[in-house]
């Protein structure tokens, strides 16, 4: 390859390593060397005093420890005659600090060599994880030859070269990102997994919520939303309440959330204006009503019912639609193809699934307790990353 990749910033590995990766034999899924590498990485991160300041780094450390990986492996059983596809090129979201590490781990566990474009922004979490990876790789050359972490901006030549060299491309969306990356062609046999813009929402049982610890729920909901500027595909955009004491539950919930947000979340001027515009837009189109609030930290718009049009009125930085329902299946209009995660407050995910799944919604990939929307799994957005990033040698 003529190298438009030479001048990029390599956090792990180097440009020459990418050339050699193409000729490395693939590994089987859950190869012992890959599992051991992640286990070592986990130990290194969980033992790092500096990492303790970053809950997302610690969460990743827990996720990739040996027992956890074994647990994730169990449903796969024996993956007979399966091998990684070869070289996986990951385009991680440039604004979510730790997502690149999960994407890398999935590619590795599927048996691939991996080039990961990490966030362009200087997150301390990225430095911490990359430092830990470098330390651990010094002792496992077999894996070292299969990992390259690179940082670059809007350089199409680099994306072109990496796309042309890979066997699988994983693009963490936004639709605009996906469109931009698809300007770079893939080899004919390569596969692509693209995570597009999605819509997520929360369901809450008012009566049971009133029995829960309000501060704890607020913290969980904060982590699901404000922690990523409510701009992750998993971030709830709406809360649908059911029960007798909806008004009381709403008052308690939003007051507790405000206490959590105030002083912790810095609302910028542009999203403050954007939230007001989003409120006006929603009011003009669907008759939504802005709930009175002491400030702009939480923008809540009451709507009469969960209709499918609401999906087009999402915003970020603390903008929530809200409605009351008599039964969970009333949220079905929100469960179209773009719907990803339902977060549950005061109701078991299984109970919500039991109401929705019999109606065969086109969307909904995950139903999880509040606070868990960002938990990464090897099946994500309906894609089984292990199976899709590997191939089978079929024997008759």
């Amino acid at each position, binding site marked *: 390859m003529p190298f438009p990749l030479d001048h990029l910033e390599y956090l792990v590995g180097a440009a020459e390593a990418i050339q050699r990766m193409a000729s490395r034999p693939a590994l089987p899924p859950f190869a012992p060397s890959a599992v051991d590498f992640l286990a070592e990485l986990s130990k290194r991160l969980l033992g790092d005093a500096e990492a303790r300041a970053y809950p997302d780094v610690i969460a990743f450390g827990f996720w990739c420890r040996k027992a956890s990986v074994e647990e994730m492996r169990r449903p796969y059983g024996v993956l007979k005659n399966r091998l990684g596809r070869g070289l996986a090129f990951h*385009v991680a979201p440039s604004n979510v600090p730790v997502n690149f590490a999960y994407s890398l781990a999935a590619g590795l566990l599927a048996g691939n060599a991996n080039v990961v474009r990490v966030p362009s922004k200087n997150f301390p979490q990225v430095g911490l994880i990359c430092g830990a990876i470098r330390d651990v790789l010094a002792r496992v050359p077999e894996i070292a030859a299969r990992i390259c972490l690179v940082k670059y901006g809007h350089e199409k030549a680099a994306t072109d070269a990496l796309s042309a060299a890979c066997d699988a491309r994983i693009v963490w969306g*936004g*639709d605009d990102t996906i469109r931009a990356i698809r300007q770079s062609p893939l080899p004919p046999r390569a596969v692509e997994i693209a995570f597009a813009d999605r819509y997520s929402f929360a369901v809450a049982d008012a009566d049971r919520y009133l029995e829960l610890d309000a501060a704890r729920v607020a913290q969980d909901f904060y982590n699901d939303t404000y922690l*990523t500027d409510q701009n992750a595909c998993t*971030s709830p955009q709406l809360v649908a309440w059911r029960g007798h004491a909806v008004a009381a539950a709403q008052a308690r919930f939003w007051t507790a959330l405000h206490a959590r947000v105030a002083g912790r979340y810095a609302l910028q*001027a542009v999203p403050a204006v954007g939230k007001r515009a989003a409120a006006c837009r929603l*009011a003009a189109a669907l008759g939504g009503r802005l709930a009175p609030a002491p400030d702009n930290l939480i923008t809540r718009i009451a709507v009469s019912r969960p209709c499918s049009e609401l999906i087009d009125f999402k915003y970020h930085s603390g903008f929530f639609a809200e409605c009351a329902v008599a039964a969970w299946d009333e949220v079905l209009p929100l469960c179209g193809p773009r719907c990803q995660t339902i977060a549950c407050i005061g109701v078991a995910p299984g109970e919500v699934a039991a109401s929705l799944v019999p109606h065969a919604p086109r969307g909904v990939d995950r139903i999880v307790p509040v606070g868990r929307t960002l938990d990464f799994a090897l099946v994500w957005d309906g894609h089984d990353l292990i199976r899709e990033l590997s191939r089978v040698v079929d024997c008759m």
Partner: protein
Amino acid sequence: MFELAPFAWDRAAKEPWLAAQLAELTRHHRDRCPAYRRMLDGLGFELRPDARVADFPFLPVRLFKEMELRSVPADAVFKTMTSSGTTGQTPSLIALDRETAGSQQKALVKIVADFLGPRRLPMLILDCPSVVKDRALFSARGAGILGFSIFGTERFYALDDDMRLDVAGIREFLARHAGQPVLLFGFTFMVWQHFYRELARLETPLDLSRGILVHGGGWKKLAGEAVTTREFKARLAEACGLARVHDYYGMVEQTGSIFMECERGHLHASVFSDVIPRRALDFAPCAVGEPGILEVVSLLPRSYPGHCLLTEDEGRLLGEDDCPCGRKGKYFEVLGRLANAEIRGCSDTYAVPT
């Protein structure tokens, strides 16, 4: 209202009058623009008799780029204005009826005359003639030039349609009006890029020491070149002896009721307008000196509900009623576009470079 002296009223006189005008305007638009009515209902706004200017609901100006907001029937629309559309942005579409277009012209005359004097002057337009040719779809640049043209007697375009400075033509124009004041008008970026830069290269400099430059349209494109207001003026003075320069702040969504820069370098609200910097946290009005999101108020729009708009510009009040230039009302400065902080999340990860 067009009989009023534009900068004569202090707060005690202006505030209650403006509030009463806004109440009437808000009611007017609420009754005629259904989408605006739903927005007011959604924001929980109720018209109270004791409402102050800062209490009236404001619409983020970007809404005009996304939907048609109109308070007159389609057949009453006499022309549609578009913002010149910064690269990559959707332009606003502003529907004007004859009444609103007329008010814009009248207000502009009253405001600008306060700075230039009542006499019309020979006018050098620092742009090319083609920018005003498409009358059906007015751009902000074209509309600005046509609007200001009424202050000119003989008008001369300083650039040809290939954006080349017509130096010989300008020299002839100046010779014809030797010894007289001359009005120069253009957009800030055009003035800098196509006028100043060429002037600075001339071996025999032009003498514009009797010129009065009025320019507007924003500093956004110049910010990349790190040109400050002060430097802009100093360099022009050096290149051609231009001593009187008035910036103005205005937008296509509120044409006419522009905020002009006085001899002391301050932008002024007139009797037709107001400015309220607001805090991002709760939209409360800022104190004097405190930077905030600029809300602009204009009494002119009757064909579209654009009388109270929240911009995406940052600015701050410098004072009220006590500018050393003698004009009453609020005076302020614009600090630039609101800083667009990076928003976290995975649905906005590869934003197209702008």
